[in-house]
């Protein structure tokens, strides 16, 4: 295998690792601005991670090995996902490892391990968080799959790079089915990344928290990995969104220095815009009661299915 | 109207008598006279057999006439009378279907029987083909009697007169069955009545009555 793609692959992963916390910071900053608060430093997530890595790990006595392995696995899956999703370039070595469906499976793996780890210590909040996380998951996952289905039906493939390449090649027109799925995807993204209105990353209020509840027993480096992983997850979802709905600017054909050097700034732009948009949504919408989350996700599912139907109807006609 | 030979007329008279008798049995409620009627039936049957024997000159018919006389006129009635005395059952209770109703049904049955006998009658070469219909009628009437009676005893008499009907049928259709069969049938009837005798005593000692409503326990209506 030639060296170029490998380097590109490595570059993509590194960019992801580096950019993920930054993106999170950016979103928080935008939210602060929109809320007329003085924004924290955009680098705050880095500081957090660094700080956590230096602390002593405190673990419950009855925690099993699973509890300690889980952070690494979750982190690993997220990094792998970052390597597969064409954020900078398609046609990368890792791409063959998994198509879009496998990618969804990858996220599911992360979620399952996260939940298992949360149940391991056997505290009230851990199990509660795990349950809620799985609930959100089993509703979000099909919606995400439907979104991908529509894209794959349009481009006759389930390989993400191929999809985005195909979509990018298409004439720039508004495709109604894609529009529906875009909405669905946004909702899924909010839910999966524990953002308002499904969850609130900023609070530890028992009754409402989902994602945070699962991390309660973690500390130090394990917590750091978990935080980093969730930042990566947000980043990954954003990149999937880009690949599906604004696929332009990804170095589809040539993964030489030129293409990449062109792709990086484009990605930065997209991230900035997405972060802004995300912040806006989070600011204007209110946190839902946990039991309302299913309805929220059902809407997402509905949108995705509508997109599917629209596609088949118009495509069939 | 063609001329009918004398003994032929006699035979027809016998047939008519048999029919009359079974109607009489159908309406009779006194068990003693029921048995008597049965005996008379036997007499008529014997007469008919003798007539046929005389006419056809079939040797074995004389024998079966004898058999009939011995069994159905002498032995069975005697046995039944004895049982009646020993068991003290003289009256049958009100039949399930009242007399007039029974009679009406009987008439219908006779009509049906004649209709039934048509194909046979056409074929029969015997001199008394018309009697076949009567034989069937006798059988079915006996059947009806068994259905409508409530006392074991009268049911048995019905059973026996049914056998009479069969015998008469055999006579009128085919001048009787082969000897070996005749004997077998007679034997069976004999044994049957003996068994019945045993039966009556068993039933009596259990229920001290021969009323059939004691014998209605085994059913699916739990």
């Amino acid at each position, binding site marked *: 295998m030639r060296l170029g793609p490998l380097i590109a692959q490595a570059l993509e992963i590194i960019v992801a690792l580096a950019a993920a916390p930054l993106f999170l910071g950016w979103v928080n900053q935008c939210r602060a601005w929109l809320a007329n608060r003085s924004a924290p430093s955009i680098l705050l997530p880095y500081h957090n991670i660094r700080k956590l890595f230096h602390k002593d790990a405190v*673990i419950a006595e009855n925690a099993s090995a699973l509890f300690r392995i889980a952070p690494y696995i979750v982190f690993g899956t997220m990094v792998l996902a970052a390597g597969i999703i064409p954020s900078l370039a398609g046609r990368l070595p890792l791409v063959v490892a*998994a198509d879009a469906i496998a990618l969804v499976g990858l996220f599911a793996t992360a979620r399952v391990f996260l939940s298992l780890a949360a*149940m391991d210590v056997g505290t009230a909040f851990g199990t509660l968080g795990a349950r809620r996380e799985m*609930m959100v998951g089993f509703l979000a996952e099909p919606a995400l799959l439907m979104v991908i289905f529509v894209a794959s039906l349009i481009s006759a493939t389930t390989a993400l790079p191929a999809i985005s390449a195909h979509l990018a090649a298409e004439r720039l027109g508004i495709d109604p089915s894609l529009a529906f799925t875009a909405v669905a995807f946004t909702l899924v993204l909010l839910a999966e990344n524990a953002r308002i209105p499904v969850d609130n990353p900023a609070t530890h209020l028992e009754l409402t928290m989902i994602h945070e509840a699962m991390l309660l027993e973690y500390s130090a480096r394990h917590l750091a*990995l978990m935080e980093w992983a969730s930042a990566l997850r947000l980043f990954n979802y954003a990149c999937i969104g880009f690949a599906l709905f604004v696929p332009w600017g990804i170095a589809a054909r040539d993964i030489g220095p030129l293409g990449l050097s062109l792709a990086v700034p484009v990605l930065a732009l997209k991230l900035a815009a997405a972060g802004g948009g995300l912040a806006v949504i989070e600011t204007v919408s209110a946190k839902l009661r946990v039991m309302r989350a299913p309805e929220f996700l059902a809407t997402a599912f509905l949108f995705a299915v509508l997109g599917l139907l629209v596609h088949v109807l118009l495509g069939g006609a | 109207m063609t001329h009918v030979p004398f003994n032929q007329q006699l035979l027809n008279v016998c047939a008519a008598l048999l029919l009359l008798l079974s109607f009489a049995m159908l309406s009779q409620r006194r068990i003693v006279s029921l048995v008597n009627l049965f005996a008379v039936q036997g007499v008529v049957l014997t007469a008919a057999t003798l007539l046929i024997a005389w006419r056809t000159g079939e040797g074995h018919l004389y024998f079966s006439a004898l058999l009939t006389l011995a069994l159905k006129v002498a032995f069975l009635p005697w046995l039944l009378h004895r049982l009646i005395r020993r068991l003290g059952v003289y009256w049958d209770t009100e039949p399930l279907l009242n007399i007039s109703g029974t009679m009406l049904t009987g008439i219908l049955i006779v009509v049906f029987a004649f209709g039934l006998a048509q194909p046979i009658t056409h074929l029969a070469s015997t001199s008394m083909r018309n009697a076949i219909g009567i034989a069937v009628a006798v059988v079915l009437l006996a059947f009806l009697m068994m259905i409508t009676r409530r006392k074991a005893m009268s*049911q048995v008499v019905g059973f026996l007169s049914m056998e009479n009907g069969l015998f008469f049928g055999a006579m009128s259709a085919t001048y009787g069955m082969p000897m070996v069969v005749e004997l077998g049938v007679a034997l069976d009837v004999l044994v049957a009545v003996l068994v019945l005798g045993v039966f009556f005593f068993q039933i009596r000692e259990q229920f001290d009555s021969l009323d059939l409503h004691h014998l209605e326990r085994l059913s699916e209506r739990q």
Partner: protein
Amino acid sequence: MIASLPSPLTDCLALVAAWLAIGVAGLARPRSVRYAGRALFVLGALVGLGLAAAAAWALVSGVTETRVLPLGLPELPFHLRLDALSSVFLLLLGAAAAGVSLFSAGYFRDSEGVAPGLLCLQYHVFLASMGLVLLADDAYAYMVGWELMALSSYFLVTTQHRIAEIRRAGFIYLLMAHLGALAILLSFGILQGGSWQFTFDAMRAAHVSPAWATGAFLLALLGFGAKAGLVPLHVWLPEAHPAAPSPVSALLSGVMLKTAVYGMLRVTFDLLGHPLWWWGLVPLAMGLFTALYGVVFAAVQTDMKRLLAYSSIENVGLIFIGIGLGIVFFGVGMPALAALALLATLYHSLNHAAMKSLLFLGTGSVLHATGQRNLGRLGGLIHRMPWVAALTLIGALALAGLPPLNGFVSEWLLLQSFLFADEIPRAFVNLLLPLGAAVVALCAALAAYVMVKFYGVIFLGQPRESSLAHAHDCGLLERLGLGWLAAVCLTLGLAPVQVISALAPVTRQLTGSAAPQGAAWWLLAPVPGRAVSYAPLVFLLAGAAIVVLTVLLVRLFYHQRIRRTRPWDCGFGEVSPRMQDTAEGFGQPIRNIFQSFFAIERELPTPFDAAPRYRIVISDRIWRALYEPVADWVRRLADALAVLQQGRISAYLLYSFATLVILLAVVLAT
């Protein structure tokens, strides 16, 4: 003929016979656990391995042989046949049986209620009868094997016959099995098409009119569906599986359900030959409903074996979805896609055999160690029984359909084949089928939910009962059994390309078109010419590499100091086991979302209860809606008829009289 030189068929036959022999040998010393309960079962496991090997060889060498045994009916001796289809399922049978028997050798004690020898007999007759079902090439041999399978497994299910529920479960099981068998029998009766030959060859040759063929197909679907547990014919399954001893549950769920799949494929694609495309919609619809129904019920169960039983129903649903898709594709003339769908079916059958057996055996170990089947009284066993916990985790993750394990592969294939549904040249169908994909996706996600509940509540958290402290890990033989099945799961997960190329002859036999070949030995692609791929090996290696790298970096740069304290739990004081979610609690979201599925009766505590208690009974609507009315109807009819026989002799005489008169009238009339 073939008998002279050794042949795969002869080998398989000999091995199946060997099972029978082992079973009979069990009666020699029925009371001895070491002989009948241990040695013979190990022997049986070896036979299973042998069978798997022979079948695999037959599959690879691609032989198709037939032979006739001097048994059976005079006109219809036992015909046997070994072809690609049967050898795949024989492989499944052998491999699964090997693991289960190995486990059983360590599992069965004489506390099972029946003498070990008898158990050994029933167990091995069960295995042998399944072998006969897979080998049979005529209706009679097939039905003999089929019913024998039901019978032997019935005795196994009712091993603990002193418990009334178990007797009831056994009764329902055998009743459903028998009714199903009757349906299959009639289907064969149609298939022989007037040629009084009941050999499958004759049925292949026979020409059946479309109407009759449809009848045969529906009857077969009824019969095999009843065995496989398609909703609404599933009622026996969640009763029988928990009732049986765990190894038997493993066989029932892992292998026996697959014989129904085998039968369905055999009848539809082999004997009927040319299925009409719309037939496929029936199993497809039933499958979709079954899958959703099963997984939703699994999510709310509190008995771990019932949970697995319902999850089996779900998987059967997925399998039949594949069959339905295959029929549709084949019917509209897309053999390649039909091959893909059937491939998903076959692959999922193999997967489910491995993972569900594994999980049931796991529950068996838990049951022996704790004596508890109720999830509400388990927990924290990962500390007490690490082996079982570790091996079961593999099964659970596989069943949850997570890459890179095997469950995901078949799910992936199924979704891929759904992706082509829009090319079907039938209006509406191509519109509706993609919605099926949505249901499949939902089921897959719910399966993950169920598995997290299953594993988390049993093995993680704190023990909910003090008695669990004495739980012990399973013995060596049991570990071997579990390990073997786990290994099978991993292999199926990591080497899909090889498995698929091995399955190619089957799809070629069924649809005339080969299954998709991998682009490379490590790369899986559903159909040639599509830029789609899944490479579990790369996937796993890359993932592992990243994880290891992370671990190393962390070890390299940061200190390893760790303090152990009590759980923090957001600052609550004492953390008691009762604070954890119970099984009911974990199922609660599902219960709310899918309320319409269940017939729920609740007993909620009021705020003023001195000793507040919470009880909830979730039962199957279908049972009340479908089966109880039928039973009532039969009972009422019987009561009505009973009037006929009211004990009066005159009435009886009247019957005779009436019969006589009526018949005479009939004769006169004609």
